[in-house]
């Protein structure tokens, strides 16, 4: 069998269309908002069809592989696209692989369905190739838009963020994808009178797969919430222990206080003015040291009335105390609500405190200061810390920037990514006199 140039061109255009459809589905399954930014990275992907066509020519030369030629090619394309996604989305490998498999399931299902359609309506395949490809591509875009509307990507993203199980999810999706590919090849073996059933089968299968993914995502979400709840309970217990400690200290202090008073009255009786002053100073210092600081901290924490936020900050305060980072927390008025998804807010808070802690620990006298103020339907957050490294203003907000070198600061771009969905949130950043400050104001939208 010889391949003509025309066949090659047709093959190239066909694969190219497949890749474009795949890209459209990828955008949909990852719930991508910055579509243009991703599309800017599209050109390198266009090399993939070229590689595929060249490889298929090569594979023709090995007759034993003819049976598997399609599968081998599909797998290679899948891997190429995975690496492209890894680069364009800044995903980890398994995340990229899972996303690619998911998008491929949709794309292969569509190919199968459209092939059935074309055969039914255009039996002699005389329709111009360009028209068929255009129709194919527009169906992909339409289905992608539908997926956007159905918020499929939002659920799928949740699964992708589940780092502990991403490998299993990716392998499961890969299996499903392989099943889809096999069904796609089966079309050639189906007799015409059964094609309608086959069409139905494929449609049902792809819908089932999508529902399976959503089901997993929902189960994962529920699990995460339960875990968070348990975490909150644990933190609450820690807080209560702190209160208990204050109570015990008060009792002990009362005892000392009585002793000191006894000493005082004796000193007063004998007229020892210097000794009197000294004992009084000890009394004052003793209170501050043993109780004052603790009471202060617990009042501030008591004003944090969002359990998730309190739990996170308690956790961070404990870590900072352990690491020897001095921490000051001020919450002047009770904070009862923030007009953001509370988990998103907690994630922002976590990123900012972690960054502050890490940067501060490079300095000689590490400290972190956290202020929260709820006033007039807005919540204001300010986190500051000293830093020792060089700051490059032009690069700071790029993916992966950090004072510790490139690739370490995934946090700050993640923070920006979260805030993109909240027009009511205004972040400010400043770095002056060796102090780095992150501020965030969240207005109430209601």
């Amino acid at each position, binding site marked *: 069998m010889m391949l003509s140039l025309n066949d090659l061109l047709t093959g190239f255009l066909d694969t190219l269309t497949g890749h474009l459809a795949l890209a459209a589905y990828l955008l949909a399954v990852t719930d991508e908002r*910055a579509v243009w930014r991703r599309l800017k990275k599209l050109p390198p992907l266009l090399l993939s069809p070229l590689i595929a066509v060249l490889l298929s020519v090569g594979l023709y030369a090995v007759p034993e592989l003819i049976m598997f030629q399609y599968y081998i090619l599909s797998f290679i394309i899948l891997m190429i696209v995975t690496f492209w996604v890894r680069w364009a989305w800044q995903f980890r490998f398994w995340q990229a692989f899972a996303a690619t498999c998911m998008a491929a399931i949709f794309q292969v299902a569509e190919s199968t369905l459209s092939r059935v359609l074309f055969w039914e309506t255009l039996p002699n395949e005389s329709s111009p190739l360009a028209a068929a490809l255009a129709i194919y591509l527009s169906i992909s875009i339409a289905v992608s838009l539908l997926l956007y509307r159905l918020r499929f990507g939002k659920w799928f993203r949740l699964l992708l963020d589940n780092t502990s199980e991403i490998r299993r999810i990716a392998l499961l999706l890969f299996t499903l994808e392989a099943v889809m590919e096999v069904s796609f090849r089966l079309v050639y073996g189906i007799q015409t009178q059964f094609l309608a059933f086959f069409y139905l089968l494929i449609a049902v299968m792809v819908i089932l797969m999508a529902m399976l993914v959503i089901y997993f995502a929902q189960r994962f979400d529920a699990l995460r919430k339960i875990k968070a709840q348990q975490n909150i309970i644990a933190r609450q217990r820690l807080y209560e222990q702190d209160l208990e400690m204050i109570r015990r200290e008060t009792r002990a202090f009362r005892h000392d206080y009585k002793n000191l008073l006894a000493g005082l009255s004796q000193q007063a009786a004998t007229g020892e003015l210097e000794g009197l002053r000294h004992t009084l100073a000890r009394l004052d210092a003793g209170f501050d040291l043993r109780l*004052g600081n603790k009471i*202060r901290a617990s009042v*501030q924490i008591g004003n944090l009335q969002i359990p998730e936020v309190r739990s996170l900050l308690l956790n961070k305060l404990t870590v900072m105390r352990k690491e020897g980072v001095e921490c*000051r927390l*001020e*919450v*002047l*008025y009770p904070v009862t609500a923030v007009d953001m998804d509370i988990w998103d807010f907690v994630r922002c808070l976590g990123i900012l405190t972690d960054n502050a802690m890490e940067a501060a620990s490079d300095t000689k006298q590490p400290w972190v*200061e956290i*202020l929260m*103020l709820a*006033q*007039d339907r*807005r919540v*204001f957050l*300010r986190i500051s810390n000293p830093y020792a490294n060089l700051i*490059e*203003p*032009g690069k*700071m*907000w790029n993916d992966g920037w950090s004072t510790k070198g490139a690739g370490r600061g995934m946090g700050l771009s993640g923070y920006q990514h979260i*805030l*993109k969905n909240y*027009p009511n949130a*205004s*972040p*400010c*950043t*400043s*770095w*002056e006199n060796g102090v780095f*400050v992150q501020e965030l*104001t969240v*207005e109430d939208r209601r």
Partner: protein
Amino acid sequence: MIGIYLCDDEDVIRRQIQTALERKIFMENYDMEVVCAAAGAQELLDAVENGKQGVYFLDVELKDGEWDGFLLGRELRRQDPHGTLVYITGHEDLAWRTFQYHLEAFDYIVKEPEQIGPSVSRCLEEIHTRLIAERQSPTERFTLRTDEMTRHIPLRDILFFETASAPHHIFLHTPGSRMDFLGSLNELETRLGNQFIRTHRAYLVAADKIEAVDWKHNKLWAGGHECLLSRAGKAKLRKIMGEKP
């Protein structure tokens, strides 16, 4: 003359502070006067003259209906954006940083019977020095107002404005910060006049902060940041550069 206003609900403390203030003013011959020593927030607010720059000594733990020290300070800031706020507190553990950042409070004084007089006079001296310094070199400020949160940024610190990725959000860049606020570049362009050049649809750059221009690749640099340059921006920039040789 600069008016001094005092608000504390403890009579003894209030009298102590007032005496200390008056003595210091007399001794140093400051151009200042204690205009009002009030026991409640409303009394103080009634006495405050709108639009005049004053110095305020306020009790943090003030309890007067809805008012507390923070809210009173905020109301005073609204009426007198450039006034000086000093807080008086019974405990050293007040949320002082919060007062500093949100009210630009100048200092605080701890109510300790023996210390309060010297603390007050030392504080007044510092305020006086600062006010004199400010009068000698007033700085033109850009007032960034997002509803009630107001920040004053010296105009000479601003490098450029840039549209943020979220709609209607603008980034303001200075050598040491980036702030996000709601606004529009068109409005800013008309408000700020010709000290700032609209080099691109998304950039409004301070003319004297431009460090380098890359005409070929449509870029320019201000404070180490890369800004974009459009065709119209180039024409504007060329014109300005042509004007000043």
